[in-house]
């Protein structure tokens, strides 16, 4: 029961972080290996804000999200777009963007170490118990989960009920066909990349409320987000949310039953199973 609830709470926050990557990879088609570092940057932003003001870190979303949006838009505009233009094929672009974002992730780590140091960081906010079915859970986890749920639902509705969201989904399905129906694909991609970064950073703010992190921990979150996206199926938000809960549960089960140090192993086992059984993901479409 413990595992179930903690796993679901964790999965809820993972869903938000993975939706960010989903937007960047599914719509803008950029494999962003610096995604986890951005999440950690969001976490540091919340930490810095909470340490300075002592009001709810949730409020730090108000400046973390716009900042992350602007930063990612700049990254797309000045780092990724030249690669898109230079690339002769999708494969070449993939290699280039992987290399560029890999280098970028180290720059992020370097900047964060310079500002916040390399030590483990956490802060105590709402670390009082709540009771669910008679068991104690940290209030911060529950609050984080609900905040994530609100953002996820908002994003889902936005993607499915507005014209702008429809345009993004169209680009995700087929960029060249989207161009034919007068969608500005370049702008939609840049927007999706920036929005994805903002969503990921928001995930970082929420995770920072109960997780301990340090500047170099981003790669683990990059992997988790990637595995969730692949497990759910690239380009499918429902799949991402479901997969995030599966990963949250699997990780919590491993952490509780075997050892808290092996959470990445849980993610990898899921990854292996997906690769061997259903490489296109739970909701993905099989490509020829």
């Amino acid at each position, binding site marked *: 029961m413990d595992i179930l609830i903690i796993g679901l709470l964790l999965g809820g926050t993972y869903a938000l972080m993975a939706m960010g990557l989903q937007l960047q990879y599914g719509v803008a088609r950029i494999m962003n290996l610096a995604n986890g570092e951005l999440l950690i940057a969001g976490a540091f932003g919340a930490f810095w804000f909470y340490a300075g003001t002592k009001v709810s870190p949730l409020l730090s979303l108000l400046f973390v999200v716009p900042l992350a949006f602007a930063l990612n838009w700049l990254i797309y505009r000045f*780092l990724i777009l030249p690669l898109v233009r230079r690339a002769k094929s999708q*494969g070449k672009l993939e290699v280039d963007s*992987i*290399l560029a974002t890999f280098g970028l992730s*180290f720059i992020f780590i*370097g900047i964060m170490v*310079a500002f916040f140091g390399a030590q483990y960081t956490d802060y105590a906010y709402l670390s009082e118990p709540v009771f669910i079915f008679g068991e104690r859970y940290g209030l911060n986890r529950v609050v984080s989960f609900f905040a994530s749920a609100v953002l996820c639902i908002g994003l889902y509705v936005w993607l499915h009920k507005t014209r702008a969201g429809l345009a993004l989904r169209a680009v995700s399905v087929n960029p060249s066909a989207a161009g034919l129906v007068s969608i500005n694909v370049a702008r939609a991609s840049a927007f999706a990349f920036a929005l994805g970064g903002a969503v990921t950073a928001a995930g970082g703010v929420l995770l920072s409320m109960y997780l301990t992190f340090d500047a170099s921990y981003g790669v683990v979150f990059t992997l988790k987000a990637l595995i969730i996206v692949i497990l759910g199926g690239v380009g499918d938000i429902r799949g991402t949310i479901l997969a995030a809960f599966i990963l949250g549960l699997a990780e919590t089960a491993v952490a509780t039953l075997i*050892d808290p140090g092996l959470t990445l192993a849980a993610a*990898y086992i899921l990854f292996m199973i997906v*690769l061997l059984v259903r490489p296109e993901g739970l909701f993905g479409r099989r490509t020829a």
Partner: protein
Amino acid sequence: MSNLADTRQAMRAGAGLSSGELRKLLISAAIFVLAALVPFAVDGYPLQLAINIAMYAALATSWLLFSGPTNYIALSTAAFFGIGMYTAAGGIELLPYPVLILLAGVIGAALAAVVGLATLRVSGVYFVIFSLGLAELIRQFMTWGQHVFGTMSGIYVTIDRSEPEYYWQLLLLTVVVYVVGWWIGRSRLGFALRIIGNDEVVAVHCGINTALAKVVLFVISSAFASIAGALVAPRWGYVEPVVAFNPFVSFQVVIMALLGGTHRLWGPLLGVIPFVLLWELIAIEFPSQTTLLLGVCFLLIVYVIPNGFTGLVETALGRRGKAGNAPGAAQRMFDPLRNLRQRGKNRNA
């Protein structure tokens, strides 16, 4: 397709060494002999640098064996390097050291086979993702294993070796990697890999078992990284998970190979020497900003010299109107797709 058959025939006909190749072989041999004399000329700090250069030369060249022709960026060097270190450290009380070095290669190869079979059948991106976290995954397992089975967080490993001996060992490994790479380049496997790197769909249609070719090469490449780990473990003296599976090793290997250029087997050798020196400079001058500055170097290489030093050299040679003698000419001849593409262009024109 007839073009492809021609090329194959050309490959078979060229099974013996041409005079150009013989010359290149002699030059390479001379360079390695000169490199082997380094410990007689210097010791102390310069020799330590030379050992680092030899180690990264072996790692970067073995990285290139797989990632060069296939264009799949392997970010897993640290994982295999660490496995090699742990094989040497864990078995030093039980088995003779030379056996351990081979064993490290075998274990690295076995792991690479599992990883390769799981990911390389599907798509390049999945392979990159898997390789990105592999070092961290194994580090977690090692930490957990040592936590469960022992109390120590690391293992001491000491054998009697002098600094020049470490240098020669690593240099020899580099030579072996280089020769194996050269041999693969001439073999059917290398030919298949070049086609895969150019266009995987065409490769499949030519009847190449693309997955098998990639897995075999990844296994070879990873085994060498493990052996390098086993060779340097005693020099470090104390092996613990955080040090052995340091993701920086993967990062540095990729950056050095890119700096040198990934289109030629000798590319990494050109990249390793300047980069090890630059890294030393950065570590001394800006000890707290190494990560940041290395990230910047990495981006500069990706954006400014995407083809590395070898690309620059070849462009320069090409401009002087010696395209026929440029080192790229041989490969261009063996690149059937480029010829096909060229034909397409001519037809369109």
